């Protein structure tokens, strides 16, 4: 680990996400900016196959998911060394429309040193390599969602 003193939080949880307290935990005395991405359970989808969703059921392979989240955080630190704190949290279980499902938060001294790009990269990579799956439950029945990305061995 090259960055032993910088806070990194990775977590799979069934609890409601608390962005304010996550941010406080990744804020250093040198922090002046943070960017947070959240996923949200979408009740009405118009892109692709238009549909309604009642809730999402999330399932994870927790120990591997947390290892892969830690890997995403390390990739962020390599690409944007100015990032100070990182939190990557995925909520699992039954989530209702409007509920935040995931949080990717990055802090830095200033807003112009990659903190927006780092958060964007974090959610993109989470959706590629972190073993979490969701099932959409709607008026027409239920269906597992499948991603498109096939990680390389060892990725």
């Amino acid at each position, binding site marked *: 680990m090259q960055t032993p003193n910088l806070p990194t939080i990775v977590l799979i949880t069934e609890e409601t996400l608390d962005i304010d307290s996550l941010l406080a935990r990744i804020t250093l005395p040198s922090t002046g900016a943070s960017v947070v991405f959240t*996923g949200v359970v979408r009740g009405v989808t118009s892109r692709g196959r238009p549909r309604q969703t009642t809730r999402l059921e*999330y*399932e*994870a*392979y927790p*120990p*591997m*998911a947390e*290892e892969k989240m830690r890997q995403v955080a390390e990739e962020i630190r390599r690409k944007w060394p100015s990032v100070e704190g990182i939190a990557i949290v*995925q909520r699992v279980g039954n989530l209702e429309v409007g509920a935040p*499902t*995931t949080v990717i938060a990055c802090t830095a001294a200033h807003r112009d040193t990659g903190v927006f790009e780092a958060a964007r990269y974090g*959610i993109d990579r*989470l*959706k*590629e*390599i*972190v*073993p*979490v*799956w*969701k*099932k959409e439950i709607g008026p027409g029945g239920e269906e*597992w*969602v*499948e*991603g*498109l*990305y*096939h*990680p*390389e*061995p*060892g*990725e």
Partner: protein
Amino acid sequence: MNRVKILLFATLRDYVGARALELDLPPGATIAALEDLLIARYPRLEKVRGSMMAAVNRQYAADEQIIPENAEIAFFPPVSGG
């Protein structure tokens, strides 16, 4: 024989009807061989043969990887979290 623990997630768990299995494999068995064995035993897996992901001890694994002793193997569809 090499006793391995196999974890199944999402659609694959539904198709197999179990979250976890334990199997004895001949030494030197690969991930591809284990996939064939599972598909033979649970034919519904045939339709996801092309998209099954495998992890060995929580790392993504190649088809040709030889399964180590006492490994934790997981099979699952492409991830869809977020």
